[in-house]
């Protein structure tokens, strides 16, 4: 490369760096302003609403889509919020739990699934779902830094925090998906008659999977569980860990190991995996193999409420 070309190239790179850095900051702060006002949608609205109500509710539910669709929080407490989000795991939940005010008296239900704990591939990358709050909320920033799931470029180009979610945020800003003032985080799965036939066929052919040979606990999942435990210890909250029903689970080894781990750590765990296994013929309770319909969720929450009431009265 000639010296003249090299000088031109360096000049161009310098100009690109300055301008791209400036544009990045302008867009980032604009997106911050917009996203802070978004209260609907899974991209950021649900998280914003959670951050707004987390220290004023009596009961909080954390977990993945199964928590979101299975626990009718209104039935448990009129002032409750379901923070279940599709596709997330214990890393995301543990980080959010650690943002709660430890002094506030609350009941915290953490929905956990064995698949996080016995999956070798689980690496805690679901924590990236909180990246829109990176460099904005201290506890989330430090958890993200500690996880190593954040690119170092993110400290230069802040808009990377909105990677993949910018369009969803704009869409929910212009046209909110629902009225957040009446939303408690629970999303019912209604199975209409046109989908019921396909659901019935799927459940009829639901062959239970055999147990895997590997029952080693994933160290990353376990580490995040311990973070919840240490927070629970110093907080004024009642923690309950729950696994909601699955249509046809043949393997109980993983559930038993998980039960032992939670027992050893003095964490209350209710495993409802096989709660409806004996009446598998009633397909109306299900949307698919792992998700219950709104009817199933109502029935399950009633059961959970009774169990919870018995447990809280035993604590008194």
């Amino acid at each position, binding site marked *: 490369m000639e010296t003249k070309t090299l000088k031109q190239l360096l000049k161009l790179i310098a100009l690109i760096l300055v*301008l791209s850095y400036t544009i990045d900051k302008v867009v980032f702060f604009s997106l911050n302003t917009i996203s802070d006002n978004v209260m609907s949608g899974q991209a950021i609205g649900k998280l914003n609403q959670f951050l707004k109500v987390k220290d004023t509710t009596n009961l909080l539910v954390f977990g993945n889509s199964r928590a979101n669709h299975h626990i009718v929080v209104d039935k448990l407490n009129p002032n409750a919020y379901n923070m279940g989000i599709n596709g997330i795991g214990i890393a995301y939940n543990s980080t959010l739990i650690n943002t709660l005010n430890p002094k506030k008296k609350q009941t915290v239900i953490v929905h956990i699934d064995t698949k996080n704990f016995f999956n070798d591939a689980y690496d805690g990358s679901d924590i990236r779902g909180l990246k829109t709050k990176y460099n904005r909320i201290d506890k989330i920033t430090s958890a993200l830094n500690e996880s190593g799931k954040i690119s170092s470029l993110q400290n230069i180009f802040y808009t990377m925090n909105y990677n993949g979610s910018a369009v969803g945020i704009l869409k929910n800003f212009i046209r909110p998906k629902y009225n957040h003032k009446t939303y408690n985080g629970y999303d019912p799965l209604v199975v209409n008659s046109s989908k019921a036939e396909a659901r019935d066929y799927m459940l009829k052919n639901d062959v239970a999977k055999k147990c895997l040979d590997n029952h080693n606990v994933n160290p990353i999942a376990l580490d995040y569980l311990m973070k919840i435990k240490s927070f629970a210890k110093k907080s004024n909250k009642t923690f309950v860990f729950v696994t909601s029903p699955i249509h046809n689970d043949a393997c109980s080894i993983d559930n038993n190991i998980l039960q032992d781990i939670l027992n050893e750590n003095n964490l209350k765990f209710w495993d409802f995996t096989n709660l409806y296994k004996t009446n598998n013929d009633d397909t109306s309770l299900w949307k698919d193999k792992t998700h219950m319909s709104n009817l199933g969720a109502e029935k399950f929450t009633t059961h959970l409420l009774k169990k919870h009431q018995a447990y809280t009265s035993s604590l008194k």
Partner: protein
Amino acid sequence: MKTGVFQIFIGLFRKVAIADNLGVYVDSVYGNYEIHNGSTLLVATVFYAFQIYFDFSGYSDIAIGSAKMFGFNFNRNFNLPYFSKTLTEFWRRWHMSLSFWLRDYLYISLGGNRKGIAITYRNLLLTMLLGGLWHGSSWNFVIWGGIHGLFLSLEKYTFSALKIKTFNAFGYLYTFIVVIVAWIFFRAPDFESAATIVSTIFSFDFGSLFLGDINKFVNAVLLLTIGVAIDLRLFKSKVSLEEFGVRFSTIRLTIIVSIIILLLCLFYSTTENFIYFQF
């Protein structure tokens, strides 16, 4: 130098933003093709057609642009292939380094079109079958090459019978349909799944479209629209991407590259490797 910088960033955008975002939807549909209806499989196949194009052309742009920065000029590898009226034209615009090699070292070596019409058809078919096998020892690649060879031969026959040199505007649609049907065999894991996908699409029983993660789907459609709009602009202006960067002043190029960097930050996807790394 400016052309090189421009080409590198356009390549990055094509690969990291467009192709990888399309790939998320394609993988989720092709990974469970049995449960999807015709409309979903059709959209996933169209997405794949653009995914493989933007993936490979983006990779080529990055390589050619980088070489240009060091004073090496390589021939272009893609020239807006989906703007082709015939399959013959498509192969003059798609993966040009391979197609010209196949033409020069296989088709012409076999006799090309100098030994009569029947031998010409045989040569076309053999060249494309071997071109398919170049991608891997799978029947799917053979069928992919066979479809191209068959339609190239049919085109040659049609042109000589009708005494025409190309098709009218309808040819764009014809070429795209042939290419995407062939892509099904290229993308599907085996012959059985490819056959199922083809039969589901051509049963014309189109139901509601599976969107998967709505945010990811909308991002993919948005980025695809931007990618196609850039190609359409290049096609209309009849200027190649390689020549486009020369037109820009330093300030204009800086603005364009900065906007591309912003789009990369907002839409990059890390889920995919370069598709052609497997070949």
